[in-house]
């Protein structure tokens, strides 16, 4: 429990900075929404566009004049921000002991390594959850003036759940990378590569039919906001994939870390 509290305190500053950034982003983004909200002219323009074209620009099913439509475009950027937060957090929370040479102190305590890990993972998950909640609050503040209805709130709730799942994927991968590499510099470089590459893959996936399989590779495609809007929920295959990645990576962390040499 002590380690858990310590970790929460240690990461508080980062969490606050990220929260401010996410809140500011939401407010700025919904300032632009004023131009679209219930503006029938904009709606008409969208109606006259052919389906194929909207699809090509990733705007199909995204009616920018409604809260849900606008939200479905915001969602991807929310995923990216929270995903980056999670992978860095996962990588840091384990790697920092070796980077700052504090591992020597921590590991000489009469606590088993897996107990240390449990506290760290718990703290990391709680941090992710808190940031998701803060994003939710940010969105709530931003859309309050547009009188959201029940379906809006449900949809936003789904997006936030999806964002949390994506955070869990990246968190577990970040933890695993840090647990299995000896040098912090290397593990942080790998974490960055992971986010950038999965993001670029998600862009490439939308370019051509021939690389459609990439939608199973990059987590950013698992919970596409437009899919959630159309299907009123998540697809079970992606839920399965998420569970699989999280379980395997977490298992890997608990298997590898207690057994390896610490680089102190």
């Amino acid at each position: 429990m002590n380690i858990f509290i310590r970790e929460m305190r240690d990461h508080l500053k980062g969490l606050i900075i990220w929260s401010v950034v996410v809140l500011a982003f939401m407010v700025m983004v919904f300032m632009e929404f004023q131009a679209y909200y219930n503006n029938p002219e904009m709606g008409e323009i969208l109606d006259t566009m052919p389906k194929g074209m909207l699809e090509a620009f990733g705007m199909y099913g995204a009616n920018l004049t409604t809260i849900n439509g606008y939200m479905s475009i915001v969602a991807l950027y929310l995923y990216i921000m929270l995903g980056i937060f999670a992978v860095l957090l996962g990588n840091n929370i384990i790697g920092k002991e070796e980077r700052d040479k504090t591992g020597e102190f921590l590991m000489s305590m009469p606590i088993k390594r897996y107990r240390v890990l449990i506290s760290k993972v718990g703290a990391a998950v709680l941090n992710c959850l808190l940031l998701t909640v803060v994003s939710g609050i940010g969105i709530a503040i931003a859309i309050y003036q547009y009188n959201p209805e029940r379906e809006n709130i449900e949809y936003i709730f789904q997006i936030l759940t999806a964002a949390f799942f994506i955070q869990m994927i990246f968190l577990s991968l970040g933890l695993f990378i840090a647990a299995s590499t000896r040098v912090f510099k290397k593990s942080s470089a790998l974490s960055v590569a992971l986010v950038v590459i999965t993001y670029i893959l998600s862009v490439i996936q939308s370019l051509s039919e021939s690389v459609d399989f990439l939608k199973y590779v990059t987590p950013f495609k698992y919970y596409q906001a437009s899919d959630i809007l159309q299907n009123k929920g998540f697809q079970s295959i992606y839920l399965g994939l998420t569970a699989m990645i999280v379980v395997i990576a977490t298992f890997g962390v608990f298997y590898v870390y207690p057994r390896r040499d610490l680089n102190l």
Partner: protein
Amino acid sequence: MNIFKFELRTYCKSFFLWSLGIVALQIIMMLFYPTMAQDAQIMDLILENYPEELLQAMGLGEQVSLATVLGYYTFVFVFVQLIIGVQSAYYGFQFLSIEEREHTADFLFAKPVTRRRILVEKYLAALSILVLTSFVVSGSTFLSIELFRDGRGYENGPLIMLLLSVPLFQLFFFSIGMVITVSTKRIRGVISYALGFGFGLYVLNAFRSIVGGDLLGIVTPYYHFEPAYILMEGSIPMERAYVSIIIIIITHVVTYFAYLKRNIRSQ
């Protein structure tokens, strides 16, 4: 001169890996150009039927046709910018903070070299790596376009203009990293900051390009050096770029004076 040489050597591996990433990205993205060009031609025909104002309102006015080489390359280059943005910010955060983080400051600052000289040599080494990276970007730009242009022609002028904007773009991120380093006590996770800045400003601009509006673009160099604008107009949008240039100048001055007076922490 010794510090400069030493620094250059330490960059070697990281420079090689980043370059590899940039070249691979450009080639992979251009790989899709031939098939995209055919699809895009059909779309261009549809788009032609829509009045200009209407497209502008949709935020599509700035969109270049994806069927042309430069049009498609606009799209590719945004991601190249993303990578060099993160890289430059990384070097900016790294090159001054590393001595304190790895406790090598004690050693370095005990040498009979002025602090100004250390700063300048370290700075020049990092700068050389950024310039080399921009050469790599230029080389792989022409390489990937020549490989996959499929017989379609393109103009050289705007492309060269775009590549000339790269050093300024890099300097923006680099100097932001620098100034944050000298104004904080200690930087722990360099890569978190670099990724936060590189990606954060990118997200802002990506969102701006969908919903329109200049407000979101003011602070982000991805908008100051927007590939779509440069490739279409053949020039850098100076009124936006000035924001970047002013920030670069201010941060350089601040860094110089702050670092000379800095309380270097040892242990």
